[in-house]
């Protein structure tokens, strides 16, 4: 799990890194230098077996995640090409998803779907690790919050599971922290939408329930996939995000 944390490569860091490279190489191809890159998985492709099979991880990361990246890169290039929309490209993907209404109509879909797809999958890979980690103890901050909100960690998992299997069509199930209400919540989003589109929500744990996330191994049996997901959840990372979000909330008070 330390290795996983060390290899974390959030989209925000990617955007900043790309910007730095762009400033350093103003004479070279600006477009290439400013493109976001696909972060490597924090573990091997077979590391989440048997919960998630190697083939799914390979296609999911190298094809689906890459395709979302290509879409957002194209959209960012377009935003960068106009004076009036340059500021949107400079925000970074996480931030621009909170400003979808400012994006020109023709680019809204690629930013929402490509940008959302890009950040969601980064968070998803980082929400997992080989063999998972221990569920949070009620004595720890996240454990305490889960008990306070849902009654017990198991009750939280049951509620999350229920939402995940009942989601119709493509989408995601989330555990998020609400900065203004100072509480945890479970939610679902369609397609590549994210709770992070709202200013006050910080996603902590993500589960992809698009069919491509599980079909090769589980076929139509989504409930078996969701059950297996718990065996690879990186609770240390989820805890870290929770404490960071709570710290941020306190700062803004």
């Amino acid at each position, binding site marked *: 799990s330390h290795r996983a944390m060390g290899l974390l490569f959030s989209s925000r860091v990617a955007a900043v890194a790309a910007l730095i490279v762009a400033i350093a190489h103003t004479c070279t191809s600006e477009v290439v230098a400013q493109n976001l890159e696909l972060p490597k998985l924090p573990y091997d492709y077979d590391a989440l077996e048997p919960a998630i099979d190697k083939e799914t991880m390979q296609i999911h990361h190298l094809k689906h995640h890459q395709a979302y990246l290509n879409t957002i890169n194209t959209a960012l290039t377009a935003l960068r090409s106009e004076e009036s929309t340059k500021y949107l490209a400079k925000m970074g993907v996480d931030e621009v998803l909170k400003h979808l209404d400012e994006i020109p109509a023709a680019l809204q879909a690629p930013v929402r779907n490509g940008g959302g797809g890009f950040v969601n999958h980064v968070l998803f890979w980082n929400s997992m690790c080989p063999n998972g980690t221990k569920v949070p103890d009620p004595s720890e901050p996240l454990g305490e919050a889960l008990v306070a909100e849902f009654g017990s960690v198991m009750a939280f998992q049951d509620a999350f599971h229920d939402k995940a299997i009942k989601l119709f*069509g493509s989408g995601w199930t989330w555990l998020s922290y609400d900065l203004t209400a100072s509480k945890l919540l479970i939610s679902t989003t*369609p397609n590549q939408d994210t709770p992070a589109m709202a200013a006050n929500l910080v996603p902590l744990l993500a589960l992809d329930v698009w069919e491509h996330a599980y079909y090769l191994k589980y076929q*139509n049996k989504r409930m078996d996939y969701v059950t297996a997901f718990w065996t690879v959840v990186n609770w240390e990372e989820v805890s870290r995000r929770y404490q960071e979000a709570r710290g941020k909330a306190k700062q803004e008070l």
Partner: protein
Amino acid sequence: MLRQSLRSVRSVAKAHGARAMSSYTLPPLPYELGALEPVVNTEIMTLHHGKHHATYVANLNAAMEKYAEAEAKKDVAAMIALQGAIKFNGGGHVNHSIFWTNLCAPKDVVAPAEASPELAKMIDAQWGSLDAFKTEFNTKTAAVQGSGWGWLGYDKAAKKLAIATCANQDPLSTTGLTPLLGIDVWEHAYYLQYKNVRPEYLKQVWQVVNWKNVAERFKAASA
């Protein structure tokens, strides 16, 4: 056990003067599970028909049973709460029932012009050629975000054909068009064989499109 509960609900419904409930059934495929090979493989057909479509039917029946109970009690809030499940599962049942008839074994496929000169003429008039029509259909259908369907529909008011896409299991009727040909692009429709390459599935699927069935639907819609 399901039959018993259905019977008891029916008798309760009848006692309250409600109309009798019908139950929905999974239509059999008009061909063997392997008939669409190599375009759509046996494994996909087995799951798609026997699991996915079957689940829509089961869930539709369950939702309609609950709806009948709510209706009998005049519980409008409960009826409204069930509308999502009826749309999802009812839409899924309607769409897939059309879909199976829209497809046939590659050897049984005939060209649109042979199936219906009138339909072929209308395609040419509106898109320039059959190829141009397929290109637009595939481009629009490949672009569906997440789960959904691509459709060739008939606009009865305008007396024209139209290409449309729908999200999730929304039936084409929600757009005002009459369905002629639907292509399922939920990932379950192609993933085991084509993985992420939806455009390849769309390129290949035309080899199993049953234009005779499309022509029948067109004839009925344009009558």
